[in-house]
């Protein structure tokens, strides 16, 4: 295939594969812990970061890192202190950081043409520098996940119990939302600000339909994420469509196929029941009352 000979396409494909894998892995935690809205909030916040980069003349991906991390921690702090519900905190940060971005763009003389690429993703947008940032950040995220694999699993499954047994649940939560922020930043060049959260959530959600094992869910999510990213990029070149939209729609298609093929309903029927109680003894007449009251 001659398209693979183009340097921009090679960069886009390598970046796409890394992003597909990283998004899928972080997505597993996002889906299981119900952080989808935080992911979407942070993604929109990256718009402010990108605009700030343009304004200051630095690489927008780098300025977005700081901006997204700050937003993630802001949401986490407000939500943890219990002054506001998490989704309210996200709602506030999400809109205000976008507003800041719009303000920054207004301050610039002459409208920047590259902005559309950041919003919806572009295969032409991945520069050599971007590729190195993507590879570095992607490797960093994967390393942190590998190191804190058991803590991330425990805090996602049962944060209270994690804390009780001496796992620093609060710190791990902040680590997790920081990872979500970095994942968003890594992905915006290829999938775009508007669509990143879909690439985080969808492959993991599709994998969730297919397995009841945590590690298998992660492996399947990576497979689906990488497949969507690579085939989406190739397809977007052939059809001349926005790369982010093509990737996300492919992932969504895989999600629906997985949901239709999902054995989950069959599994639910296979859940065993406790053996029926023996005929009530003298002790149990009272329990019977309690039991009925509880139901």
């Amino acid at each position, binding site marked *: 295939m001659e398209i693979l000979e183009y340097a921009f396409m090679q960069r886009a494909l390598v970046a796409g594969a890394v992003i597909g894998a990283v998004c899928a892995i972080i997505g597993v935690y996002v889906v*299981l812990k119900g952080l989808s809205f935080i992911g979407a909030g942070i993604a929109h916040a990256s718009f402010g970061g990108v605009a700030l980069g343009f304004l200051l003349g630095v690489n927008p991906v780098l300025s977005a890192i700081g901006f997204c991390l700050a937003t993630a921690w802001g949401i986490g702090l407000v939500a943890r202190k219990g002054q506001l519900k998490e989704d309210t905190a996200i709602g506030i940060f999400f809109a205000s950081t976008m507003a800041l971005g719009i303000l920054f763009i207004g301050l610039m003389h002459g409208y920047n043409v590259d902005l559309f690429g950041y919003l919806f993703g572009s295969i032409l947008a991945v520069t050599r520098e971007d590729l190195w940032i993507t590879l570095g950040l992607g490797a960093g995220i994967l390393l942190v996940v590998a*190191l*804190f694999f*058991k*803590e991330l*699993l*425990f805090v996602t*499954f*049962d944060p*209270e*119990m*994690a*804390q*009780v*047994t*001496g*796992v*620093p649940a609060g710190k791990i939560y902040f680590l997790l939302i920081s990872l979500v922020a970095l994942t968003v930043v890594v992905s915006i060049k290829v999938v775009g600000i508007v669509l990143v959260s879909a690439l985080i959530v969808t492959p993991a959600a599709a994998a*969730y339909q297919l*397995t*009841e*094992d*945590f590690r*298998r*869910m992660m492996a399947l999510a990576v497979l689906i994420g990488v497949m969507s990213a690579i085939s989406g990029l190739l397809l977007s070149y052939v059809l001349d469509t926005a790369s982010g939209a093509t990737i996300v729609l492919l992932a969504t298609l895989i999600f629906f196929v997985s949901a239709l093929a999902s054995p989950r309903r069959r*599994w*639910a029927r*296979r*859940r*065993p*029941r*406790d*053996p*029926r*109680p*023996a005929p*009530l003894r*003298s*002790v*149990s007449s*009272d*329990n*019977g*009352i*309690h*039991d009925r*009251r*509880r139901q």
Partner: protein
Amino acid sequence: MANQTVVQLDRVCVAYGDLLVLEDVSLEVSRGEFLAVIGPNGSGKTTLLKVVLGLVRPVRGEVRVFGRAPWQLHSERRRIGYCAQGASVDLIFPVRAGEVVLMGRYGRIGLARRPSGADRAAARRAMERVGVADLADRPIARLSGGQRQRVFLARALASDPELLLLDEPTTGVDVAATESLYELLRALHETGITVVVVSHDVGVVASYADGVACINRRLVAHGRPEEVLASDALEQMYGCEAMFLHHGRVPHIVVEKR
């Protein structure tokens, strides 16, 4: 051992905002005791456990667990096993029972380190102890209510605790499984573990525990089950209407069992 008191609460008050959930609760749990904490819904029973675990801080009063404030516990944490209410986690989370039990060891393994063979062996032993070793590879979504509670109990036991705290361990578990769960707790208690169980199953609990504490924001009564149940503590706690279910019955049950 110089200190035979495992848990000590002295005039503990807990408030959520303006709402006082526990008021002046003073209570001691001695090593080797089997204490049942009973009380109506919203009486502060769960909060009491959370105070002992360091998850909730009292606004007034002193708490000591193994001689320390619960939020200052470090390695002592592993001496405590906790079994939260079953409904507190996502029950269709894609994770297998064996992994859930192993989580009980994560805290003591330490950050960024992998479970060793010894950790896996301890998790295995805990599962054998409560009779769920054959369920290790079963996803938790495919456990019955009773099996799930045993898996959570095994997780609490995986760190070889001296103090076992259980919050409504029989919620969503039917009568037969409830009894076998309490038999299991009795067996664990006989190996020397201090057990504190929060429940509203007044009748069942009273026949297994050797102490009963009645909580309704305040400590209404505390003593041996037959004393507490014979007193008017239950009536004070539940009010008159609900009492018709219990009154006159529960003490008889205790007598029959003994």
